[in-house]
């Protein structure tokens, strides 16, 4: 049930948060053995929060805009008193003594947490395969990956285990799994949502955003989590517009740029066909389609795989076995304790990225790699600025392919990195971007359409995505998939 309708039902007494959360927990119990979307199901917290919502309603108090809405929280967002593992052995038993800003705002808005969702270890990956606690399955085909890194959040929403979820997106970690799982995923403008409490992967790229089954629900969640936070120096101090009110504004005359460089060689033909059809659908709704070129778009991936690991190598240096987290036994010396703890506590992909980043920042290489990458990042941003002088939004596929199978890329990190080819540039430029389902391939796997907007133009993204969603009604013709809600 969409949040709007649910909210009405809750307020007019035809539903209770308790029933709603119990249904979610039952659905989780039924599907989780196969899906494995959660690292930790928080039934007790869900019941307590639902109870509080029902009591507020009974007391005729405002229970908040997301009252009773069930939500899965990516397990790299700190939740006070609830383990936050980042799907890593390193933090397997880490219980934060504080709450992230986004979850604090969600609980204040009445949302109900059903669990902490699985991810690639420390959000490094595109499939959840690097999770120390096992892979999440794709609800459309349990033999395939859900995408990543926020694979658990995408899967739990697609499977109806909860209404919405939060993920984090450093190079596509919300949009790519949304695309693979046939749900809506929104990465807001860098700085729109506070990162306080988000375990850092690459600080200049990380951004938190929602997963939902409808665009309107993403708007409702963004409304609650967006806004300035004095605890995050990079959070933007600008007013938060009414996102839901933007949804139904007319889209006639908006210029949509078809980003030429996104239609790359190697793009799965069904993905290209489906995305181009979606563009035509927008044209039929009154938008004007314009071919746009950003020549350095494809340089994004090389740029990203220098900047993100560089920042990660510093961000993950704190996990040394001294203060919290995993500590190796029987170390002979201080440095051995740190080295051994990190070798045992981190998985291969995390270690690979730490090594890449350490290398890229080392004396003698920093100019050729890190500084060069920063320069290219600036050029990419400038190209987007010029593109947005011509058009209101840019349109691309979200991912080059539909969901792949586990192990398909595990011996080839580069092939895995290409899964983020189309999503990375928005992170480098700090732009908001959304993935909306736009069709299915021949195997019944969902395809995602990506829209990108200028900085702080989330309204425009949501508005066009909503119109598209209503007109295309992609889910009306969806294939059979028992795990999908």
């Amino acid at each position, binding site marked *: 049930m969409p949040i709007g309708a649910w909210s009405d039902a809750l307020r007019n007494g035809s539903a209770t948060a308790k029933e709603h959360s119990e249904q979610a927990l039952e659905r989780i119990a039924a599907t989780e053995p196969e899906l494995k979307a959660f690292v930790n199901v928080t039934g007790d917290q869900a019941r307590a929060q639902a109870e509080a919502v029902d009591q507020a309603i009974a007391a005729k108090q405002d229970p908040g805009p997301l009252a009773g809405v069930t939500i899965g929280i990516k397990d790299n967002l700190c939740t006070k008193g609830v383990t936050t593992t980042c799907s890593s052995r390193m933090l397997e038993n880490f219980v934060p003594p504080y709450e992230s800003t986004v979850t604090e705002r969600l609980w204040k808005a009445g949302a109900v947490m059903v669990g902490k969702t699985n991810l690639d270890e420390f959000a490094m990956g595109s499939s959840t395969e690097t999770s120390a606690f096992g892979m999440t399955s794709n609800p459309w085909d349990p033999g395939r990956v859900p995408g990543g890194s926020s694979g658990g959040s995408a899967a739990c929403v697609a499977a109806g285990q909860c209404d919405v979820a939060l993920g984090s997106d450093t190079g596509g970690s919300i949009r790519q799994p949304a695309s693979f799982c046939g749900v809506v995923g929104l990465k807001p403008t860098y700085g729109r949502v506070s*990162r*306080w409490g988000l*375990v*850092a992967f690459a600080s200049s790229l990380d951004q938190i955003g929602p997963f939902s089954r409808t665009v309107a629900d993403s708007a409702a969640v963004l409304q609650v989590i967006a806004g300035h936070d004095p605890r995050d*120096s990079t959070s933007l101090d600008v007013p938060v517009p009414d996102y839901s009110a933007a949804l139904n504004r007319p889209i006639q005359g908006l210029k949509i740029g078809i980003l030429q460089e996104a239609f790359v060689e190697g793009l799965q033909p069904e993905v290209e066909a489906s995305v181009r059809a979606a563009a035509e659908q927008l044209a039929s709704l009154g938008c004007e389609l314009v071919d746009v070129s950003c020549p350095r778009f494809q340089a994004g991936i090389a740029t990203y795989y220098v900047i993100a690991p560089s920042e990660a190598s*510093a961000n993950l*240096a704190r996990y040394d076995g001294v*203060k*919290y987290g995993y500590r190796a036994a029987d170390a002979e010396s201080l440095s051995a304790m740190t080295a051994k703890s990190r070798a045992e506590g981190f998985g291969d992909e995390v270690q690979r990225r730490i090594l890449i980043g350490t290398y890229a920042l080392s004396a003698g290489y920093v100019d050729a790699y890190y500084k060069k990458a920063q320069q290219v990042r600036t050029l990419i941003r400038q190209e987007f600025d010029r593109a947005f002088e011509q058009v209101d939004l840019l349109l691309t596929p979200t991912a080059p392919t539909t969901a792949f199978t586990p192990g398909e890329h595990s011996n080839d990190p580069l092939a895995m990195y290409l899964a983020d080819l189309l999503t990375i540039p928005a992170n480098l430029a700090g732009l908001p971007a959304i993935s909306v389902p736009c069709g299915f391939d021949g195997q019944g796997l969902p395809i995602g359409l990506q829209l990108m907007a200028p900085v702080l133009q989330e309204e425009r993204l949501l508005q066009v995505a909503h119109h598209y969603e209503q007109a295309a009604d992609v889910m009306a013709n969806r294939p059979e998939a028992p795990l999908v809600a």
Partner: protein
Amino acid sequence: MAADWEAVIGLETHVQLGTESKIFTAASTAFGDDPNTHIDPVVCGLPGTLPVLNKKVLEYAVKAALALNLEIAEHSKFDRKQYFYPDLPKNYQISQFDEPIAENGWIEVEVAEKGKDTYLKRIGIERLHMEEDAGKLVHAGSDRLAGSTHSLVDYNRAGVALAEIVSKPDLRTGREAAEYASEIRRIMRYLGVSDGNMQEGSLRCDVNISVRRGPDAPFGTKVEIKNMNSFSAIQKACEHEIQRQIKAYETGEPVVQETRLWDEGKQLTKSMRSKEGSSDYRYFPEPDLGPIEVKADQRQAWLNELPELPAAKRHRYADALGLSQYDARVLTDERLMAEYFEAVVASGADAKLAANWITGDIAAYVNSQRLSFSELPFRPEQLAEMVQLIDGGKISGKIAKEILPELLEKGGSPKAIVDERGLGMISDPAAITAIVDELLAAHPDEVEAFRGGKNKLQGFFVGQLMKKTGGKADPKLANQILSQKLKG
């Protein structure tokens, strides 16, 4: 030192900025409490926490930089300096690398050494930057890591704001190095941005030192010395190290690039670790903090808030008030003492006389009582009154010294005390003549001896006179009358 050797010395000074909370979080900076009582998730570098710059730290850093004649950068940034050590919670230190808040300044130091001429020297300052302090390790079973059974870490100090001040290699002697460090401390205390307490580590100096054969020779190998916790230790460490290096060169021993520790007990430096090549700290811009901006009007407003600094005071005291370099130096050592002195002069006292009282008996009292000049019950206008009583011949210096302890302890009007107790000077020639006559009559033998050529006996009669008058006789007049009468 052999005549042709010259030392080249530069100092890196870490000044703890005295803000109540830490540089990137609200945790307290209080010193000396139980371990890990002033920590929070940010201090401990818990996952998901973020730094937010304490605005007071920026203000203090800019004020310190302005006082050191540094140019303030309109835009600067923080960087991450990366190295693994357990006292560094994130295993990187948030510091400033290639765009510090301030660069290119200088201070003037007055180099005074016993038996040598005092001289002024301008010392260049390379830069000042802001950074966070680390915590500290406590090793159990040994005073250092080697040999300890286990180690504990205390993060109370972690995240305390530091200003690192880097001098140019302009210093040439241990004395200059000590004077420079001492002037930095004095300036920081004048500004109120740091207490500069070396024992508690709120001011720490590392010395870089090399020697060469004369000012045109290329620099020698640079050695770093740490662990000096007083200015005299800085001086002695430099002097020892200069001699050590010269001796090494002259005997063909190698001087290696290394860090040495000053051993205060043994009064020598000893090798701590070699520094072959420079460490790779993998600096990169701190993505969690935005650019640091200091707009021109803000810079000007902070500049306007700076007090008159010690060097300016020293010059003014010598030039406008006619004090000796020595007095000017002593009076300006502490801002509160200088302000006390200035208030006394402003109340009408002669500057030189006021200076003598303040640097003498009053400073001794303040130090012995561990007071600051602002807490002294004897207020500046009261001291001015006393100085004027002496200067105007109303009381003798001896009387002033007698009533001073009471005034220092309780304050009060010296004039009222003098009047009330009849301590005013006897300056009536007739009264003194009468007493002198009495004296001469009582000591006929001494008078005769004097007249027989024992001139020294005049002192005896002065003593008797002062004893009789309770020290109140005008000494000049008394001497004059005595001389006359003794001659007969």
